């Protein structure tokens, strides 16, 4: 019950505020600090998020009862499976969910860092040098539309089971970062370049002290988009085949042996990991663009 109050309180005051400005201001000024913060919309957003998830869970619950809980387990069963998967090793894989997460995360980090290490310098050069941009752009345009997953079979053949999924993430992250960095370099205000030049900046000074810092927020946008794509890539790539476990393999294994509650638990884990990394990245992105004065 308190949870429901928590959801409706902010909504109530939201309406008070929008429909009766004068009265609401007087009232709100008397509010304790926590309630005043609702005005700022932060708790309001959380309230709606909780409401939204609650609606989803109710629909899910209804559907699984209505259909067949053997194929579509209820949220409660999935929750139990989720807790169990962390506590006891999986009978067919012999590892806990932690091990699967760590295996996926390791691939993720390696692929991600590799993509950054390559996309950032190449993007800077392609944006900064007209020649490099003209040479590089057609190549990028040809490769960009290929879905990262389409590379996976080829990568398995060439690099084997270990590097396949890593390189799938690499490709998934590479292009959004690359195109955002190029866009960032091209967006540098000409006036800033002029200002730096009149201060005596050489071409390498311009690159290091104007172009690069200017591009950082654009880079962050690319990273946020890349992270979202990255999680989709790793799960799919692992399902095509990977050695050493992973959440994708976990989900596929559970589906094959008919443990659907555990399969859904794996999907919940992926959702949580994706949400966490993307939210963390957009937090950094917001901080960075504030720092940039945007």
């Amino acid at each position, binding site marked *: 019950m308190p949870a429901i109050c928590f959801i409706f309180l902010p909504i109530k005051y939201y309406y008070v505020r929008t429909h009766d400005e004068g009265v609401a201001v007087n009232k709100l000024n008397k509010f304790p600090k926590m309630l005043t913060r609702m005005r700022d919309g932060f708790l309001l957003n959380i309230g709606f998020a909780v409401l939204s998830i609650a609606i989803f869970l109710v629909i899910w619950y209804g559907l699984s009862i209505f259909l067949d809980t053997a194929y579509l387990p209820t949220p409660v069963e999935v929750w139990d499976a989720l807790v169990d998967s962390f506590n006891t090793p999986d009978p067919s894989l012999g590892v806990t969910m932690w091990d699967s997460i760590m295996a996926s995360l390791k691939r993720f980090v390696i692929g991600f860092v590799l993509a950054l290490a390559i996309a950032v310098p190449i993007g800077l050069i392609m944006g900064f040098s007209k020649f490099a941009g003209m040479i590089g752009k057609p190549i990028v345009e040809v490769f960009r539309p290929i879905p990262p997953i389409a590379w996976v079979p080829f990568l398995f053949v060439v690099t084997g089971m270990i590097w396949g999924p890593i390189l799938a993430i690499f490709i998934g992250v590479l292009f959004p970062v690359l195109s955002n960095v190029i866009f960032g370099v091209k967006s540098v*205000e000409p*006036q*800033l370049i*002029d*200002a*730096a*030049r*009149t*201060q*005596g*900046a*050489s071409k390498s*000074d311009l690159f290091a*002290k*104007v172009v690069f*810092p*200017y591009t*950082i927020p654009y880079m962050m946008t690319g990273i946020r988009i890349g992270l979202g794509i990255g999680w989709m890539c790793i799960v799919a790539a692992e399902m095509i085949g990977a050695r050493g476990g992973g959440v994708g393999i976990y989900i596929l294994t559970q589906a094959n042996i008919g443990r659907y509650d555990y399969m859904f638990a794996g999907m919940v884990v992926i959702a949580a990991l994706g949400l966490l990394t993307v939210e963390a990245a957009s937090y950094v992105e917001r901080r960075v663009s504030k*720092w*940039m*004065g*945007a």
Partner: protein
Amino acid sequence: MDGGMKMILQITNLRKQFPKENGSLVAIDDFNLEVEEGEFVCILGPSGCGKTTLLRMIAGLDKPTSGSIKLKGKEIANTGPDRGMVFQEFALFPWRSVRKNIEFGLEIKNMPAAERHKISDKYIELVGLKGFEDSHPYELSGGMKQRVGIARALANNPSILLMDEPFGALDAQTRNQMQKELLRVWEETRKTVVFITHSVDEAVFLADRVVVLTSRPSKIKEIFKIEHERPRDRADPSFLALRKKILSELESEANQPSK
């Protein structure tokens, strides 16, 4: 000019044309000007004439088509820290604090941090930004941003300060305030200033000489020497008379179709 005075800037037979679809656009033609050391020169012209182009060529940001620009007897070939520039839209580095913006040129010279700090302190004090050293440009008002712009240009200790309509983006009140501040800074540093504006009032208030340009292609139409004591009184009848005279000069130019 008087033999005792040292000419710091000499512009002779300057011409600048830009390529256009059919033929070319002549922005500046047959332009000759000499500026004394320590002088405050305002360049006044109808909008769309080559004022900014002229200043950019002195800064080395644009190259003349023909003619010569000499600073202290040396032909200008490129940009350099001996010419400080202040921009209409401030052009501050948004990710740098006030202090870091002012120290930009010093960083480029690879000056040690302690020395940089001393110099930036001096100019922060000079332009009245004390207490805002660690603020970022987005936290500052337009007038304060331009104070940073002026301090940044001065920190390099340039031979000449080039100002491209520096107060054009400010409201009237801030603008008047900044003009007074600029004169104070100028009197303390005794830098040579070339100041572009399209405001007659501003030019008459600030300058030792006001150079009125023709519309495109820009040549010098007339030069007015302003000998009023500073601080100048805008309400003074002779100030107003001079203002009126320059204004009519400028207006006759603006009404002519550009060639």
